[in-house]
């Protein structure tokens, strides 16, 4: 009889141990995942993905990691170079202020468009919005964390 009682106790404790072994393994996976996310180079606050770009510069499908202030235009000094004949030298600026992204048109000739509507002045953006400058279409996405 004592053997049975010991066996039952052993099984009970092993069951609980299995539960905690599972939790320990999961936490290890989660920590590795969080460390990998934390050690990503740079602190990006948003991404721009190129949807359409007839000139090939930028390349369609490319993703740009954004800093808090990003300028777009045909000028080589622009943060993101848009080599399109309908894009002005300094076309627009994207700024991240606290909680939101804003798009500001820097007096471009052909204007900037968000989801197909022209921007005048400062437009607050939502992640997932489509931006168009000349023939270049881009999408603002959340940062990869």
């Amino acid at each position, binding site marked *: 009889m004592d053997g049975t009682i010991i066996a*039952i*106790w052993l*099984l009970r404790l092993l069951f609980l141990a299995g539960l905690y*072994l599972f939790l320990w393994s*999961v936490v290890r*996976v*989660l920590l590795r995942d969080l460390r990998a996310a934390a050690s990503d180079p740079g602190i990006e606050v948003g991404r721009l993905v190129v949807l*359409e770009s007839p000139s090939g510069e930028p390349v369609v499908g490319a993703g740009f990691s954004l800093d808090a202030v990003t300028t777009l235009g045909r000028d080589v000094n622009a943060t993101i170079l848009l080599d399109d004949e309908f894009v002005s030298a300094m076309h627009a600026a994207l700024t991240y202020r606290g909680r939101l992204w804003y798009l500001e048109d820097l007096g471009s000739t052909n204007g900037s468009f968000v989801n197909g509507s022209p921007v005048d002045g400062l*437009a607050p953006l*939502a992640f997932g919005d489509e931006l168009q400058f000349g023939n270049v279409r881009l999408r603002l996405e959340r940062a990869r964390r």
Partner: protein
Amino acid sequence: MTAVVPMNDVPMNDGPMNPLPITGLDPHARRGGHAHLPRPRPRPREFGLLAIVTATLLLGSASLAATRAFGGTIAPGLDRGLLADGPALLGYLASLFAAHILLILSGRRTDQVLLPTIGLLGGVSLLLMERLPQTLAGGLGLGRTQLVWLALSILAIAVIGTIVRSDAWLRMYKYTWAAIGVGLLLITFVFGHDVNGQRLTLGIGPVSGQPSELIKILLVVFLAGYLSENRALLIEESTKIGPIRLPPIPYLAPMIAMWAIALAIVVIQKDLGAALLFFAVFLLLLYVATARASFVVLGLIAFLVGGAVLYAFLPHVQVRVDIWLDPFATASGSGYQIVQALHAFARGGLLGTGLGAGLPMIGGALPIPALHTDFPFAALGEEMGLVGILGILGLYLVVIERGLRIAASAADDFRAILAAGLSLIIGVQAFIIAAGNLKLIPLTGITLPFISYGGSSLLASGLIVGLLIALSDRTAELPAVTGSAQRSLRRRQNRGSA
């Protein structure tokens, strides 16, 4: 330079010319042509975790069988053997591995932690249902019925995690989903039949279910659509009354409507749990979307005012609060369930009495009425002890962590808020019922996700986790900009230029 017209004739849905190869991501993860299947992608972490789940559940089943053989509390109709009802457990494990294989074949880079975590929760549920009186459910008996629903739920997770590649069908019809939700609520109110004084169950022919399980998902889908569309406005604009910042007045209306719906559920359906769940998830998502604590404080004040009014006028709310404050005053009456639950936790102690060694029956009745639906946490507390239930709560924490991680890495606001909302449903629901069992908050009849007995709850929870797994695939295409996004921008523009 000549003026250029923006190209508005972009294909709206993903046609063959959609230019979406996102570089840096594995090409196999993308949808190939419909002719060839995606290449399978191994999921080693999921497999490793499932192996631990298998070992743990086999040990649990063996422990249950040994306790029964020794103590003689064997339920009628079950054989003695090395495992307690081995075929059921093996069938359940087979469904888990089938789901694992389906997810491998889907070839997507999706979350590998959720399925094993849910698998362990469901397995614990199976072990619990097997030792309760099988007559609680007709037909197959409690354990086997729960097995069928669990297997269907696991299958739902795998199928949704495999086939849902676009969320356009959710985000484009958010008002339709909201209308369906409200419609279900009304239909339940008119045509539903009462069970235990609550009008929650809706029967169509032989099929009956609890629509509130589906409504909570529809609610989160609507909130994700609404909040992601109006996030910029809710953050930028606010109406100031003295030191208090209110949301802009036109956007206050849906929030008041949410509050009113929660109150209506309490008054009409007498379902405190669902009301609490809806309102808590709503406030949490409002905070997730706007990061404004003042909105939450405001919501909590509205909650307290509403709660006080309901307490003053509704007897069933008064009973709930009274038995929470002092269950021992009516220990053999309305406080009986809670008193028995507290005794069960006390009997369990640190390590528990062991699976199957709890008190299954007292005088031919369950020690805690509605144990299998409302008090499984107390039963686990008795049999697995403090150590065991802390582990169970840890599993729910893992689900929440995964959901919030998926939200943090989502590509846009809709997905982020949706993922956060879905995981918070599971987390908040588990908290409400676990805390209710422990007499931490007033008891409300709501299920413990993946552990309580009940088909509606298991299927709805499976749907939630399946959607979370589908959302964790960062390579899933974002739908093209919709008409409502354009309208939202126009509203923003009108304000932004002022």
